[in-house]
């Protein structure tokens, strides 16, 4: 037990370190590549700016005689630059630094330019990074662009260094925690292990000697009994002892029956009563609160969580330090670049004959450049006094010093003499924000790694320890109550398994013995009656013992987690992936086209949900689970190959189908594995695991798309779905409740009857549908497009969208507590809707990265408040006005209608966004949310007035 647990701990810490190390490296590469691309884009921008006057005049770029010389200047700013091309709107290269100028820019560049709504854009291939900038005329017409090719060497070199550092650190942390795990586990499990060993020895001892041990315990057992799991082990010991006695009694009974003797005091009615008692005992053993397995799991889980968290935090901190160290030179290079660009440009003007104090328009020229590098707050050219300046000074000063805050000063030379120098102010707040961003990125990665590791730990602990223990307990309890009907086929590799096998063997032996006697006494009715009595008493059967089936949610939760993560990996980049695809035959404008994959996915969920239960009854939960992963897997592979929007929509419909079937079958399976009392808790656990998967998928999807390429993320999703299917096929047994349920039939939700209830309608249109529209139209659709248009990378988008799910996870329980203590659920729902709506409205009015982030957060908090209140409010309606329909039907209808409403809302928002822009789309979501809140609030006020009036009348 101890060794196996240690192995599990060690393995899981290795997993957390591996996953975290891998993700840290990816995150580092994403950050570094982003910084590098931003820097190179400044070079592209300054070059593109030079061509702008030409495009403003409506002249083709090719008409510029000194175009080659203009693009070649970029090489002076950074010798690592591979090439610079200026190209026209069709992609034909018109000026280049390459001697053998290619005819056109690579398709990847044109695609990046076409897809970008910002003026600067970038792309990455296995050979190089491309950073480009549009050359747009005053009227907004694109005359072409400038693209700078930068070799990946620098990125790869830095990446290799970070891989080495991270790998060594991870290895050291693994060794440390693995070593630490041994004494901790020994402390925790040593005593119970010794006690179990003692139990085993006792069990295997010849019966005569065993009787000498008083109470089946004493000696070493008492050590265990005094330990952490004392009462449970004591009970197991008693059960094992009792089981042994029952075994002896059963054998004796069988022998007596065969010999025509009836044991004293054994009467038919008593026999039945004992079997009944046995059943009670069996359920008693399965009672989770008294189960040793559950107790061990509850003890191990926090220790495991602590180990996982600490080891992850340690590596996270080390990686944070390494990443910050790694990006520091790049940040310095950016500052150096801007200094070089300023001094080169000013020198060029001076060389042309313009006096330093007559440089016209330089401020706005540099001001444009500043917007690309936010950490550079201020640029000035000084001779001792400031000659020209752009941006805002961080510290006002009288005389500009040559060197400020370790920033290199760039001299401006004329005729071999230095006549001025460049002053650059770096905004420390922006630099620290950059580091805070890195910290947040790393925190996300740590959090996701911990979640993944925890799920693996739960599964492994269950498989290696608690499930075996639980089986032993169940068998022992059954046999202690005289029930020998079950056996368990397992390999005996530890004391627990050996004991289980011994018990199972006893059941097999007894049933076999009974079967032989049964066939022998075929002719004697009396003999058979005696045997029947014994069989009844000890639950024996002539067909032998049946296998003991154990089903645990833990067998399923890793699969569920992986499936949810796989499903949500593409969430943040799906609109961008769709935008890059051909429109195909769909006659919609782009904004609507981009919403169709999401709408198709939701529609599939709506249509398939009523089918899930009948299908599960027909095929079995396990088979449905495995089968439902097939369309999900096919859909992810299909999405990898999809090139047109209709294909993407089709595959997304299939994804929705798979998702609906898998999650609903999982939910039913979970409900089947627990008894009534534990259902609410099990459902809570199910939702937690599902959300953890969704959260991890969303958070990682962005960074994975950024580093691996969007289409490859679908392959990763496919691999995760396949892994989930394998886990289900290997680990999950057929569910068994012992409780017969009527076969479910496909029933359409009672839409019309529910809609007749005014309260239901207010709930649906005031809270449920607006909340769903916020999730589907804002979080899953608009956020990606808005942040992309503001120049955010997919990694940034993923991190931002994740905030929503984080808010839901964190605020949900708090809101729940608030609802039970200080606030009514109705007030909570109203506040939530108002909060979400207002946050969205602010972002719609002032679209900025910060306001959008706040809107995401507001939407998450608002949704959490709405979620907590929605079910109690719906239950209230279901228990009063719609009592005749039943709570399940009312809740089911609410779910269906809110999804249908969110599809309609999504399409409306997409149409508005297409016609009037993303801000208008966001305003529409805000209006729907606030409108819903107003409707809900008005209804609330009216009903309060009525109840007051009724109260007064009474």
């Amino acid at each position, binding site marked *: 037990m101890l060794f196996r647990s240690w192995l599990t701990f060690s393995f899981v810490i290795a997993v957390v370190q591996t996953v975290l190390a891998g993700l840290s490296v990816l995150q580092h590469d994403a950050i570094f590549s982003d910084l590098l691309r931003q820097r190179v884009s400044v070079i592209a921008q300054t070059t593109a700016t*030079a061509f702008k006057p*030409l495009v403003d005049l409506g*002249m083709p770029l090719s*008409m510029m005689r000194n175009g080659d010389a203009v693009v070649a200047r970029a090489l002076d700013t950074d010798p690592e630059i591979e090439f610079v091309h200026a190209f026209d709107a069709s992609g034909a290269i018109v000026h280049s630094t390459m001697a053998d100028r290619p005819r056109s820019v690579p398709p990847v560049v044109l695609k990046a330019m076409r897809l970008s709504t910002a003026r600067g854009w970038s792309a990455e291939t296995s050979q190089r990074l491309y950073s480009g900038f549009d050359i747009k005329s005053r009227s907004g017409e694109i005359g072409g662009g400038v693209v700078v090719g930068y070799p990946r060497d620098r990125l790869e070199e830095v990446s290799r260094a970070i891989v080495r550092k991270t790998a060594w650190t991870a290895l050291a942390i693994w060794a440390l925690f693995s070593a630490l795990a041994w004494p901790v586990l020994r402390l925790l499990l040593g005593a119970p292990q010794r006690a179990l060993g003692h139990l085993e020895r006792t069990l295997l001892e010849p019966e005569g000697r065993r009787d000498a041990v008083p109470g089946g315990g004493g000696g070493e057992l008492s050590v265990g009994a005094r330990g952490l799991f004392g009462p449970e082990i004591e009970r197991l010991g008693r059960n094992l002892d009792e089981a042994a006695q029952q075994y002896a009694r059963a054998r004796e009974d069988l022998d007596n029956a065969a010999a025509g003797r009836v044991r004293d005091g054994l009467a038919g009615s008593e026999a039945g009563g004992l079997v009944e008692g046995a059943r009670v005992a069996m359920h008693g053993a399965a009672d989770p609160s008294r189960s040793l397995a559950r107790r061990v799991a509850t003890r191990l889980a926090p220790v495991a969580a602590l180990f996982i968290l600490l080891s992850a935090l340690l590596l996270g901190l080390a990686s944070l330090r390494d990443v910050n160290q790694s990006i520091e030179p790049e940040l310095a290079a950016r500052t150096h670049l801007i200094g070089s660009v300023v001094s080169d*440009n000013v020198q*060029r003007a001076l060389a*042309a004959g*313009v006096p330093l104090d007559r440089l016209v328009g330089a401020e706005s020229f540099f001001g444009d450049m500043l917007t690309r590098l936010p950490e550079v707050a201020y640029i000035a050219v000084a001779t001792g006094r400031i000659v020209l300046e752009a941006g805002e000074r961080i510290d006002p000063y009288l005389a500009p010093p040559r060197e400020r805050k370790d920033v290199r000063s760039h001299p401006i030379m004329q005729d071999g003499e230095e006549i001025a120098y460049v002053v650059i102010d770096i905004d420390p707040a922006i630099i620290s924000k950059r580091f805070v961003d890195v910290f947040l990125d790393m925190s996300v990665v740590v959090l996701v790694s911990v979640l993944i590791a925890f799920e693996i730990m739960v599964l492994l602990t269950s498989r290696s320890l608690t499930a075996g223990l639980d089986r032993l307990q169940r068998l022992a309890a059954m046999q202690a109550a005289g029930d020998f009907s079950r056996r368990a086929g397992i390999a005996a590799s530890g004391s627990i398994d050996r004991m289980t096998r011994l018990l199972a063997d006893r059941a097999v032996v007894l049933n076999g013995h009974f079967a032989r006697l049964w066939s022998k006494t075929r002719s004697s009715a009396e003999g058979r009656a005696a045997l029947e009595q014994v069989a009844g008493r000890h639950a024996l059967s002539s067909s032998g013992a049946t296998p003991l089936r154990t089903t645990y949610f833990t067998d399923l939760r890793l699969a569920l987690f992986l499936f949810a993560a796989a499903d949500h990996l593409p969430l943040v980049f799906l609109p961008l992936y769709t935008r890059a695809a051909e429109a195909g035959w769909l006659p919609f404008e782009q904004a609507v086209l981009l919403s169709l994959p999401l709408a198709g996915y939701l529609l599939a969920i709506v249509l398939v949900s009523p089918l899930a239960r009948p299908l599960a009854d027909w095929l079995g939960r396990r088979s449905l689970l495995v089968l439902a992963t097939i369309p999900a897997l096919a859909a992810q592979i299909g999405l990898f190959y999809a090139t047109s929007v209709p294909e993407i929509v089709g595959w997304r419909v299939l994804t929705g189908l798979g998702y609906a079937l898998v999650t609903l079958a999982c939910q039913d399976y979970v409900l089947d594995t627990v008894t009534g009392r534990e259902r609410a808790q099990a459902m809570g656990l199910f939702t937690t695991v599902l959300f953890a998967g969704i959260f991890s998928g969303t958070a990682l999807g962005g960074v994975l798309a950024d580093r691996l390429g969007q289409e490859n993320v679908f392959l990763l999703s496919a691999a995760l779905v396949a892994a989930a299917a394998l886990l289900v096929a290997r680990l999950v047994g057929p569910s068994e409740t012992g409780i017969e349920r009527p076969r479910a039939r496909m029933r359409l939700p009672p839409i019309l009857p529910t809609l007749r209830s005014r309260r239901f309608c207010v709930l649906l249109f005031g809270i449920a549908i607006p909340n769903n529209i916020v999730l589907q139209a804002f979080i899953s659709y608009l956020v990606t497009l808005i942040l992309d248009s503001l120049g955010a990378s997919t990694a940034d988008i993923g991190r931002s969208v994740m905030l929503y799910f984080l808010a839901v996870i964190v605020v949900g329980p708090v809101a729940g507590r608030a609802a039970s203590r200080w606030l009514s659920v109705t007030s909570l729902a109203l506040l939530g809707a108002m909060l979400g709506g207002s946050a969205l409205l602010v972002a719609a009015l002032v679209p900025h990265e910060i306001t959008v982030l706040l809107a995401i957060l507001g939407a998450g908090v608002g949704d959490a408040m709405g979620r907590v209140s929605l079910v109690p409010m719906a239950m209230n309606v279901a228990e009063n006005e719609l009592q005749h329909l039943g709570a399940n039907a009312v809740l089911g209808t609410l779910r269906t209608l809110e999804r249908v409403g969110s599809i309609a809302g999504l399409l409306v928002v997409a149409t508005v966004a297409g016609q009037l822009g993303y801000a208008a789309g966001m305003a529409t979501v805000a209006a729907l949310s606030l409108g819903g809140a107003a409707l809900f609030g008005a209804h609330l006020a009216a009903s309060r007035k009525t109840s007051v009036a009724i109260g007064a009348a009474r």
Partner: protein
Amino acid sequence: MRGLAQWLIAALLAAAPAERTLAGESLKIVGILYRGCEQVCQGFAARIEESGLDAEFVKRDIAQDTSRLAAIVEEARAMEADLVLTWGTSVTLGVVGTLDDAEGPGRLSTIPVVFTIVADPFGTRIAESFAGSGRANVTGTFNRVPEAVYVETIRQYDPEFDKLGLLYNRNEVNSVLKFKELQKLAPMLGIELVALELASGDDGAPDLADIPRLLKKLREQDVSWVYLGSSSLLRQNGEFFTRAAVEHGIAVLSPYEDLVREQNALLSVAVRSHDLGRLAAEQALKVLRDGKKPGDLPIARATDFAYVVNMEVAKQLGRFPPFAFLQIAETVKK
């Protein structure tokens, strides 16, 4: 019928140089020039020589006297010229006429003609469109940017600019055409056009002495930029005109680079004259060497334009180019 005749002419044209080459004789190219063999003419000659084509380039200068054209056209016919290069709008109109009087007496309608330095070949009806001249024996080059570009260029240089001065010469078709075009464009471009006509002297020819007076008048009307337009006269007297402009505090925008590089215009948006001559030679080579029919060739557009700023003039005028402009402009200090 007309189509057939054009086809026959074209077939003859295509066959003629080949016959001459077979006979071992040099091809004859006659260049009809307006004011001597300047950079365009030199560029043309250089490119023909480089090409290795066995051709003799015969230069005939009318010295701005269009009355000499008839005799030169006759001479070209007599020497059985294989191709004629025409320099400027006046010369080209004198040699090939417009699309409406192409067959008139004294017009070359069979010998291939390549025109160059024609400010507006379509407005003057020398050619039909960029796709082709619309005549079997004529092709040419185009070396200007749209007039709006010149106006926008000034605006980029000087965001305050709102009044454009122009001096035009009623004796030159192209000059008058340009005046009318700008008159129409000005309101659309949001500027006021102040156009003054050069007075004629006693001989009916424009009086150069009138230039400073007109410039003074422009200055009095707050005009700070004057556009050279399309006057061969002003171009020919560029030194006098641009110097006078600077003296009156007026900047000259020229569609010809040499006025900035060698004289006192402040700014030009133009191709190099030498490059334009080479482009005309390319058109000639397509006809003479490749056997292409002139009428089938599109009008060749000059590329490689550049902004050229005369920094000395900028200094004198106290109007230095803006910073962004300097990043792409070529500057000269003369």
